[in-house]
C-alpha cells in the first residue's frame, strides 16, 4: 500500500471550511440535482479573438494541474485534494456562442445552471458574442476549488499571463499546501463547544423561511442582477457611512437585503414570533496573503438573527447587525466555525450535510449573503476588450436556495439576487429589486 506523505505536491489537505462547502454541495445535489457552483460574468466591449482566447486558456490551465483534482481520503483519515502530476492533461472547456441582447440574461442563467460534465471538471468558460464589439465572458467554477474572490484572482492572473507579463513569481507564490490539522484537538473541541452554545442560542426561536417549491428535483436557479452606476455607488457608500457608521458598508448592505426581503416573507405569512437568520460568508484573507490563497475556500461565516417584527425598521436592523457583528468577532465566532469544522472532516459528506441541517431542523438559514472583497480582478481589460462590468451569479446551496451577493468592480457596485426557481414569483423579485434600489 502506498502511503502519501504530508506536503506532497500531489495533495492538498482540505480544511473544515472546504468540507462544509463540499457538504453543502452534497445537500444541493440531493435536493435539486444542481451543485454548489458559481459563475463570474465579465461584460466586455471591444475586439475579442476566440481562437486566441481558447489557446490562452489551454496554455494557462497546463500550469495548474490542481484544476483537474478530486477529493480523496488519506491514511490518517484527513480528506485531501488529489492533484494530478505536473505535465498531465488539464483540459478546460471553452464554449463560444452568439446571442442577441434580449437573450443574454437567459443564456447566462443557462450557463450558470449547466452542470459540469464529469467529476474532475471544475472550471468552464463560455463566451457569448452579442455583436461585433459586445461580448460576455462567463466563468463557471466549482466552489470546492474556489471561493468568489479566489475565482476573480484566477482571472486576474490569467489576464496578466496572457498579456505576456512576467507572472512567474505570482504563480509560484500560490500556496497549494495545507497542514492536515490533526493536532490541537482540545482547542478544536473548545471552539466546537463555543459554536454549539451559539447555535443553541440562535435556534431558540423558529426560523423564518420561504416555503420550498415542489418538486425540487431538476429546478434551476434564477438571478436578478442589479447594477449601480459610479455615481450611485458613491452615493450608496456615503449613505452607508451616514446611516450605519464609518466603514460599515457590509452591515449596511446586509440591512438593506433584510429589509427588502422582509416584505416578501411578510406577504407569505411569516409571523412576529419567528426570526430571520442570515448566513454571511466572510473572507479570511488579508491583503498580504490574498495572492497566495487563491484556491480552495478561505472563508468563514457570521450568522445574524433578526426578529421578524423588527425587520421593517432599517435603523433598528442596522443597529442590531452592527452589535451582532461586533459580538461575534469578539467571541471569535468565524474562527470557531473554521476550527471546529476540522473535527467534522471525519464524517462522510452526506452525514456531515445531515449534521449541518440539524440545528434548524432541516433548514440552514433564511437567506445567504456575501459581500465579495474588492480587488480580486483589477485590470480594466480582459484579453484585448474593455471590461465594462463584473458580477457574480452563485447557485446558493439549498436550503435556503436564496441569496444576495454584492460585489464591486472598479467604481461600480452590483447586487445579485439568486434563488431557486419557484421560490419567488416574478412580481416578488421585481418588488425586491425596487425596494433595494429605493433603500440604497
Amino acid at each position, binding site marked *: 500500500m502506498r502511503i502519501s506523505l504530508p506536503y506532497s505536491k500531489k495533495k492538498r489537505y482540505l*480544511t473544515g471550511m472546504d468540507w462544509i462547502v463540499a457538504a453543502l454541495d452534497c445537500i444541493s445535489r440531493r435536493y435539486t440535482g444542481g451543485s454548489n457552483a458559481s459563475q463570474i460574468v465579465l461584460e466586455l466591449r471591444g475586439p475579442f479573438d476566440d481562437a486566441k482566447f481558447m489557446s490562452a486558456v489551454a496554455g494557462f490551465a497546463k500550469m495548474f494541474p490542481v484544476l483537474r483534482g478530486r477529493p480523496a481520503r488519506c491514511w490518517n483519515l484527513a480528506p485531501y485534494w488529489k492533484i494530478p502530476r505536473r505535465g498531465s492533461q488539464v483540459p478546460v472547456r471553452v464554449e463560444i456562442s452568439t446571442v442577441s441582447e434580449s437573450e443574454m440574461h437567459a443564456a447566462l442563467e443557462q450557463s450558470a445552471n449547466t452542470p459540469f460534465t464529469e467529476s474532475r471538471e471544475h472550471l468552464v468558460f463560455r463566451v457569448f458574442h452579442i455583436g461585433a464589439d459586445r461580448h460576455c465572458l462567463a466563468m463557471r467554477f466549482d466552489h470546492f476549488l474556489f471561493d468568489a474572490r479566489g475565482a476573480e484572482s484566477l482571472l486576474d492572473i490569467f489576464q496578466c499571463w496572457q498579456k505576456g507579463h512576467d507572472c512567474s513569481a505570482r504563480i509560484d507564490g500560490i500556496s497549494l499546501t495545507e497542514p492536515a*490539522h490533526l493536532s490541537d484537538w482540545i482547542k478544536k473541541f473548545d471552539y466546537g463547544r463555543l459554536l454549539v452554545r451559539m447555535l443553541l442560542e440562535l435556534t431558540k426561536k423558529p426560523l423564518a423561511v420561504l416555503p420550498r417549491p415542489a418538486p425540487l428535483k431538476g429546478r434551476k436557479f434564477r438571478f436578478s442582477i442589479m447594477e449601480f452606476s459610479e455615481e450611485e455607488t458613491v452615493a450608496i457608500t456615503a449613505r452607508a*457611512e451616514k446611516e*450605519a*457608521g*464609518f*466603514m*460599515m*458598508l*457590509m*452591515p449596511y448592505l446586509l440591512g438593506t437585503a433584510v429589509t427588502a426581503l422582509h416584505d416578501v416573507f411578510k406577504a407569505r405569512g411569516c409571523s412576529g414570533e419567528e426570526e430571520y437568520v442570515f448566513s454571511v460568508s*466572510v*473572507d*479570511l*484573507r*488579508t*491583503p*498580504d*496573503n490574498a495572492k497566495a*490563497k487563491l484556491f480552495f475556500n*478561505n472563508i*468563514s461565516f457570521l450568522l445574524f438573527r433578526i426578529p421578524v417584527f423588527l425587520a421593517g425598521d432599517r435603523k433598528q436592523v442596522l443597529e442590531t447587525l*452592527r*452589535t451582532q*457583528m*461586533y459580538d461575534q*468577532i*469578539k467571541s*471569535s465566532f*468565524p*474562527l470557531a466555525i*473554521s*476550527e471546529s469544522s476540522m473535527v467534522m472532516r471525519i464524517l462522510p459528506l452526506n452525514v456531515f450535510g445531515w449534521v449541518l441541517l440539524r440545528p434548524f431542523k432541516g433548514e440552514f438559514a433564511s437567506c445567504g449573503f456575501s*459581500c465579495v*472583497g*474588492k480587488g480580486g480582478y483589477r485590470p480594466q481589460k480582459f484579453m484585448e476588450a474593455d471590461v465594462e462590468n463584473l458580477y457574480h451569479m452563485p447557485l446558493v446551496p439549498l436550503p435556503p436556495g436564496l441569496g444576495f451577493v454584492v460585489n464591486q468592480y472598479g467604481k461600480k457596485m452590483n447586487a445579485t439576487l439568486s434563488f431557486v426557481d419557484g421560490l419567488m414569483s416574478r412580481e416578488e423579485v421585481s418588488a425586491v429589486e425596487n425596494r433595494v434600489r429605493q433603500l440604497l
Partner: protein
Amino acid sequence: MCFAYGLIAGAREELSGSCIDVCFFRKGFSYMEKMSVRDVEKKLVEEIAIILCSDPSAIKPDVPLPSLGLDSMGFVEILVFVEKTFGMRLIESGLTREDFQTIHALASRICTGPRS
C-alpha cells in the same frame, strides 16, 4: 494628558491565517500604566499589522484606514482590540469619520476617553 490604560500581558496565536486574541486585561491598579497618544498609536499599528499580516513599519498612523486595505470585518477587529486592551466599547459610539479616519485619530479618540 492621556488616561488610556495599556495592555499588561498579551499573547497571540496564529490560527489558520486568522488570529485569536488571548490577551489578559487585568484591572488591578498595580498593573496599569498611563499611555500617551503615541503609545496608543504604536499598539494600534502593531494590531493592524497583525490583522493585515503585514510589516508594522509599512503602516503609517496618518494614512486613512480604508486605504490600508481594511474592510468592515478588519475595522470591527480593531474595535474589539480597543475594547479588550483599553476597555472602551467604541461600537456603541457614533462611529464618525473624524474619530476613525486614521490610526492617529483613533488613538486620540481613545485617549480622550468615553463621551457622555
